């Protein structure tokens, strides 16, 4: 046979490409967290009143909380489809390292949820009267922060994938872990809105990402083995 051997990064790349291709073909799932983000942010001015000054105060927190909930909503499905159709089984019995596959799944998940959320955020920032000079901080903090959220969400998704109704349990597992990301993410935007330096908060988000990146796939790989062991 004239098979060509693939390196480990290439194997991960193929998995990421596959997941992104599936998401692009099933646009509903791709659009769900974005629509949620859009809808809730649209409802806010209706609920708290349209005064620009008041909205501007709330905007950093609102944008971050809603983005976080959109991520939580999306993370439930991270391994669900693969579990249901047997792809997960094939990943587990394959000689490929489950650690790298878990990392690739999280990366693909971020590409189809976190990144679009971060890119959509400037539009909603406008809607919520966030000062324009804070938009850069919003996009950067969301891009970094949602990557951490995807990695953490993968642990919850892996632990609950075997359960039919794992949604609430998933929230209970991952929400406490989401809190630091929310605090530093929202605070970065807040600082930027008030005209302060926000590089410290971004650095902490970067540090959280640097911790989550190598560690969460360990937990995800182990959780997936436990969830499918029956």
């Amino acid at each position: 046979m004239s098979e060509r051997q693939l390196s480990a990064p290439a194997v991960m790349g193929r998995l990421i490409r596959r997941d992104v291709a599936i998401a692009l073909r099933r646009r509903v799932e791709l659009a769900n967290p974005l629509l949620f983000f859009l809808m809730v942010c649209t409802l806010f001015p209706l609920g708290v009143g349209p005064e620009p000054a008041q909205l501007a105060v709330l905007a950093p927190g609102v944008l971050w909380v809603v983005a976080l909930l959109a991520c939580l909503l999306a993370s439930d499905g991270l391994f669900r489809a693969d579990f249901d159709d047997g792809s997960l089984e094939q990943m587990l019995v394959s000689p490929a390292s489950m650690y790298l596959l878990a990392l690739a799944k999280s990366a693909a998940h971020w590409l189809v949820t976190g990144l679009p959320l971060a890119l959509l955020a400037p539009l909603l920032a406008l809607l919520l009267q966030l000062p324009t000079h804070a938009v850069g901080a919003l996009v950067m903090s969301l891009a970094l922060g949602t990557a951490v959220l995807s990695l953490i969400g993968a642990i919850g998704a892996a632990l609950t994938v075997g359960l039919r109704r794992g949604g609430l349990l998933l929230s209970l597992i991952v929400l406490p872990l989401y809190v630091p990301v929310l605090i530093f993410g929202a605070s970065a935007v807040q600082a930027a809105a008030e005209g302060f330096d926000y590089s410290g908060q971004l650095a902490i988000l970067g540090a959280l990402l640097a911790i989550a990146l190598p560690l969460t796939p360990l937990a995800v790989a182990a959780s997936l083995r436990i969830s499918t062991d029956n």
Partner: protein
Amino acid sequence: MYCERDDAPLFAPLSFTVEAGALVQLEGANGIGKTSLLRCVGGLSSRFHGELLWCGEPLARRRTEFAAASLFLGHAAGLKAALSPRENLLWWASLRGLDVAAEADAALAKVGLAGYEYSPCYQLSAGQQRRAALARLFVAAAWLWILDEPFTAIDRQGVVELEAWLAAHADAGGAVLLTTHQPLSMARPLRKVTLQADVRDV
């Protein structure tokens, strides 16, 4: 290869060996634990007592080596409905570290999916999807095929072909461990391992 197992709650203790050239069919009533046994052998389940040996060593210690040498096909085929059979096959092979872009079309043609390589799997019938999964047999050089009900949804012609592929694999020095309720007419002797209900009090 030597494989020994003792799983009390499902079926009576049993011990069997799968060696090169062997075609082993697991038999038993529904719910007796055939799939559970295959999942244990495949490394998906650890809920068993007893020993699984691979080349004389405990399987758990040689997991990666075993994974590269075996091919597991469960009830759920592991096909993505949104992707075509060709994309599914390429991705599956990439899990084994193989780039099979050159062989994929031939493998799909062999299982009777010529002309469907690029159709999304949700447009295919159950039998065609099963065939798309079986195409994996021809892109990865796995020594041991672990097949759970491979004949499900396959038409009569397909059953004959699959029987021939299994026999050919065994002729070439490979081994097959499968479950099926289909009466098989193999060119090679088929060894049957019958799983019986455990009558002991547990």
